[in-house]
C-alpha cells in the first residue's frame, strides 16, 4: 500500500509542485506565518506538537528515545523546550515550545518547525510513518480580532433592545435559540492541523469541548488556501479535542 501511495505522491508532486513531502509542507508554514499574522491577526503562539499513536514494542520505544535525544541535543541551538504527554486516546504528544519569544516571530516558528519536522523524519525513517496522526500548530488571535468580537457583542445587545422585550420570549418559541451564545464566547486559539496522510493543513477553532467556530475557520481558510496547501474537503476537517497545549 505504502509503495503505491509513494508512487501516487511522487506523481502528484510532479504535477502539482505545491504538494511536496511533509517537512516541505511544514516549512511552508514558516514563510506563510507573516502573512497569516498580517491578514488574519493570528500570531504563532510558539507551541507546536507532533501527535503519534503509541504502539507496544521496543522498536517504537527506541524510536521515541531517538527523537528525544535529538531534541535534547538541538534544543539549545534552536531555542526551544519540549515535553511529552500521553492523552486519553493513548497518543503520544511531543510538544515543542519556542523559548525566546522576544526575537522575530518567523524565527521562532522556523526553529519549532525544524524540531518538529526532524522528529517526524526520525519516526518515518524507523517505519512508523503510519503512526503519526498529525502535527498541530497553535496560533493566537491578536487584539484586533477580539475587538471585532467585542463590537459584535455590542451590536447584538443593541438589536436586542430594539427588538423589545417580547423578543426574548418569542425567540424561544420561534426556535431561534441559543446558537448566538457561541459567537459571544471569546475565541482565543486557532490550531492548524497538518495531516501526515493527506499532506494538507486545516484550521480548527474549538469553542469549548463540543463545538467549533466554523465561520472563523472558513474566514481563515479563505486566506490560508493561497499560502499553504489546505485540505479542501471539509468533511476531513476532523477536530482534535482537548489538545494538551
Amino acid at each position, binding site marked *: 500500500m505504502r509503495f503505491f501511495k509513494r508512487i501516487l505522491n511522487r506523481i502528484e508532486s510532479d504535477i502539482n509542485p505545491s504538494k511536496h513531502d511533509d517537512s516541505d509542507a511544514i516549512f511552508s508554514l514558516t514563510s506563510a506565518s507573516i502573512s497569516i499574522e498580517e491578514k488574519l491577526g493570528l500570531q504563532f503562539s510558539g507551541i507546536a506538537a507532533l501527535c503519534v499513536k503509541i504502539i507496544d514494542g521496543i522498536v517504537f520505544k527506541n524510536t521515541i528515545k531517538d527523537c528525544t535525544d535529538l531534541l535534547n541535543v538541538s534544543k539549545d541551538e534552536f531555542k526551544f523546550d519540549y515535553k511529552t504527554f500521553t492523552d486519553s486516546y493513548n497518543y503520544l504528544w511531543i510538544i515543542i515550545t519556542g523559548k525566546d519569544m522576544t526575537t522575530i516571530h518567523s524565527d521562532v516558528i522556523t526553529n519549532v518547525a525544524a524540531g518538529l519536522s526532524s522528529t517526524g523524519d526520525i519516526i518515518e525513517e524507523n517505519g512508523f510513518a503510519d503512526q503519526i496522526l498529525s502535527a498541530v500548530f497553535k496560533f493566537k488571535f491578536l487584539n484586533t480580532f477580539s475587538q471585532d468580537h467585542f463590537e459584535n457583542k455590542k451590536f447584538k445587545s443593541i438589536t436586542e433592545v430594539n427588538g423589545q422585550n*417580547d423578543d426574548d420570549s418569542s425567540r424561544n418559541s420561534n426556535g431561534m435559540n441559543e446558537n448566538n451564545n457561541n459567537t459571544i464566547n471569546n475565541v482565543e486559539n486557532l490550531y492548524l492541523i497538518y495531516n501526515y*496522510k493527506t499532506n494538507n493543513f486545516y484550521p480548527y477553532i474549538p469553542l469549548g469541548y463540543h463545538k467549533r467556530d466554523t465561520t472563523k475557520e472558513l474566514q481563515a481558510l479563505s486566506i490560508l488556501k493561497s499560502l499553504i496547501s489546505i485540505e479542501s474537503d471539509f*468533511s*476531513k476537517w476532523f477536530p482534535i479535542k482537548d489538545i494538551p497545549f
Partner: protein
Amino acid sequence: MQHPWQKRDTGITVRIVFCLSILALLYIIFIAVLARMGLGFFPIMIISAGFILAQWFFSDKIVLWSSGAKIVTSDQYPSLHSIIERIVSRNNMPKPKIAVVPNRIPNAFATGKGPSNSVVAVTTGILEILDDDELEGVLAHELTHVRNRDVMVITLASLFSTIAFQVMQFGYFGSFYNYGDRDRNNGGGTLIIILVAFVTWLVSFFIIRAISRYREYSADRGSAQMTGKPAKLANALMKISGTMNQTPDKDLRQVEGLNAFFIIPAISTSTFANLFSTHPPVEKRIQRLLDMEASMY
C-alpha cells in the same frame, strides 16, 4: 471607491446574457418553424398569453400554497422581521412579505412578481439551525433574487419551453390541427412539429438550468455585498447542505483507525449530473464566497 468584492461579477453576467440570447434564438426558430408548418402565429400567441397571465398571477400563490407557507407579522417573528428591515433599508428596497413554512428541513425561497410585490419564506428548520448573522446572509440571498427579478427571468425563460412541451404532447396524442384531411404532407408536418418541439424543450431545459445556476451565484454574491459577511453565508450553506459538506464532529483519533478513509477522494458529483440541477454544487458556492472573503482582508 469600490473594492473588488463589491464589483459586479462580469463573467457571470456575460454567461447569463449569452444563455438568454441562445434561448431567445432557439425560441424564435421554434416559432418560425411552427409558423412555417402552418400553425399560425395567432394560436401560438393566445397559448403564450394564457401561460404568461397564468404564471404572472398565480405562480406565487401556488408556490406559497403548495409549500404550506404562512405570512407572519412582526409580532409573531420580531427578530426575523427586524433582520429583513435592516437589509432592505440599507439597500433601498421595499420590504417583502415574510412567510414561515412549518417544516424541519432547512430551506428558504423567494417568490412574487417583482420587488414591490414579493414574499420571502423560510422554514422553521432553518430558523433553528442558523444564528442571526447566517440567517441575515440567507435572507439577503433571497432578497437578491427578488431585486434581480429572478422569478420573472426564469418564468419568462421557461415559457416557450413549457409551450414546446405542450405542443409536443398535444401533437403526439394526434391531430391537433387539420384533423380533417390526413394526406401525407400533413402527417409529415405534424411529425416535424413534434420533433422541433422536442428539441426546443430539451435544449431549453438545459439552458434554463444553466441560467438558474448562474442566478444562484449572483444571488450569493449580492447577499455577500449586502451583508459584507461572505463567510457567514458560506457557513450557513454548509449547515443547510447537511452532513456532506459539513466539518465533522468526530475526533481525528477516533476515525484514524479507518486508514483507507484518508485515501478515498471526495465523492464529487460529475459535471453530467450538474447539468440537470438548478443549483450549483455547494462546494463551488462556498469557494466563490471565500474568494470574496479573501479579497476583503
